[in-house]
């Protein structure tokens, strides 16, 4: 990919609030066209700040890079960007249809297209029945559906979603995932902030882990979890008396389970031979790959230690 193929290309994004709280400390992130990118991080990691900087809601102290080839903060570009904020609040007296109309007008969607798209998106999100009901009477899930519709109604090339499945039931989540996949197929760039790691694991092509305002890890889910392959050997008998010898062989012991890090089969065989030599009955041997959650916890812990 050359530079023009990165609709989101952030470099050295810094943000300090009130000259004290360092929210972002030099974040570099690139997201390609037709890619779903997930940003993970604990509360207060700076995820929302990063998205808000891209959407000009928060002003950075320093930020190089571009969105759709234009410098960050270039307002006309936002016409091609869709955004769903976390804890979004719509005017309570407006109906769902009017909310969509209001935000579509603000995104300069022509009248005819507005009329057509509003009906289509209400239908798609299963909200047609509630189109004329004031949003003050909507549940959290319904608000989220309207929120997603307003972010996508103007057919943006880049979509930034902050906790898109928050408060949505499993069926709604599946529907949102399907929409995200469709966007990817249409060549759009999707950037998701979420703390629901399993959600991200299911749809994201690449993820970044943000901790204390820094990108701790970045890559595809496979890349991030590949180095974390472990083997677990479960025994039928107690092995507490053998703990020191097993640890000397480079493995860890917890209860009746021996964990061998890495994907070196000879190391596993060494442990099995040792256990068999001590007449220990082996129940099972299975490889285990870290989940995104394990990677996330590990990265957070590592960065905390370094700090």
């Amino acid at each position, binding site marked *: 990919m050359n530079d023009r193929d990165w609709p989101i290309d952030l470099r050295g994004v810094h943000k300090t*609030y009130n000259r004290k709280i360092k929210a972002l400390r030099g974040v570099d992130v690139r997201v390609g066209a037709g890619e779903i990118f997930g940003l993970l991080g604990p509360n207060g990691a700076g995820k929302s700040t990063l998205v*808000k900087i891209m*959407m*000009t*809601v*928060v*002003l950075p102290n320093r930020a190089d890079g571009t969105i759709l080839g234009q410098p960050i903060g270039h*307002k*006309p*570009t*936002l*016409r091609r*960007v869709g*955004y769903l*904020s*976390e*804890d*979004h*609040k*719509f*005017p309570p*007296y*407006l109906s769902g249809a009017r909310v969509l109309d*209001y*935000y579509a*007008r*603000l*995104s*300069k969607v022509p009248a005819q297209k507005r009329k057509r798209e509003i009906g289509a998106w209400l239908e798609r999100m299963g909200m047609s029945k509630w189109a004329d009901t004031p949003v003050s009477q909507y549940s959290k899930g319904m608000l989220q559906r309207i929120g997603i519709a*307003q972010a996508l109604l103007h057919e943006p090339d880049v979509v930034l979603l902050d906790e898109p499945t928050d408060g949505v039931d499993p069926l709604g989540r599946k529907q949102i995932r399907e929409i995200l996949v469709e966007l990817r197929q249409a060549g759009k760039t999707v950037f998701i902030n979420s703390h629901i790691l399993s959600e991200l694991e299911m749809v994201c092509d690449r993820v970044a882990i943000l901790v204390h305002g820094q990108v701790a890890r970045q890559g595809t889910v496979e890349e991030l979890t590949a180095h974390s392959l472990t083997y677990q050997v479960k025994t039928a008998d107690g092995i507490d008396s053998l703990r020191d010898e097993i640890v000397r062989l480079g493995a860890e012991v917890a209860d009746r389970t021996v964990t061998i890090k890495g994907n070196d089969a000879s190391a596993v065989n060494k442990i099995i031979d040792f256990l068999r030599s001590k007449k220990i009955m082996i129940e099972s041997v299975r490889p285990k790959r870290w989940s995104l959650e394990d990677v996330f916890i590990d990265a957070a812990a590592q960065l905390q230690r370094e700090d």
Partner: protein
Amino acid sequence: MQIWALILGTIRETIEKKIFWINLLLSTLVILGVASISFNDQGIEVFFGWQTIEQTGLSTANPFYRGLISMLLSGLFVDYYIGWVACILGLVSTAGVFPSLMEKGSIDAIVARPLSRWTIFFAKYAGSLFYMLVQATFFIVLLFLVVGWRWHVWFPGLLWSIPLVVLLFSYLYCICVAFGLWTRSSIASLLLTLAMWLIPITGIHYGYETTHSFLIAKDWHKIKSATATLRWFVPNTTGIARMVQSAMDDTDPLELFKQQAERGLPLSMEELEYALEFEKKMIAKPWYYWVGPSLAFEAVVLLLTGWRFSRKDF
């Protein structure tokens, strides 16, 4: 399209509040009160002609009847009702526009659009002023029609008070917006605006007018010059009534004042001459004397507040 959407959104927001309808209802009641009164060559007819109170001073036979009615309209209805009651109700209705705009989750969806923060700021501001435009138009057009029909005098110039009252409201609303942006609370911004209006602004202007008009403070030269200086730095709310009156009627206000003074005000000739001299000076002032400093004040407050809004993290 975007600006109009923002303005319309703000209007809708204010109309949704009950106070908007309470304000309209109150205006209707006042207009009904005006309609229940009429004047004839003997005096005042009350309750739609139920009884006549003989009062030659306020009868159609009085050669200065038109002038007196214009004073009554500009002083009582425009200055006090629209300029005070409706403005306070307007502030109550619109004080929440900026604090609610800046609520977490609400501001994001608007700022993240292809329009500048300055545009958002001024469109919301204009939308709030539209509230006052609706209220003032409703009241003043009805007042104009009812006064023409029941009091037999037509003042097309009264309609000038619509933009003038909106102007007056805008002086106060800019302060409310500044406080709203600072405190993010509609109640705090409303109370602070009222405090700023009622205490220094009104105090200074009324102090200034009083010291000049009634001569009771003829010796208070220091206070007089202090208030005269200060009034240049704060919105001139009382000047609006004067402008309305001069737009309404071409009766020589000096003659009117003289006649009224001769009728009843306990003034010596020396005091009367002084007051007349003052009135002459006031009448000779150009329009920008009344609105210039206030507009400059408003512009400065809006520019500072708009700049703050444009640089704020939400």
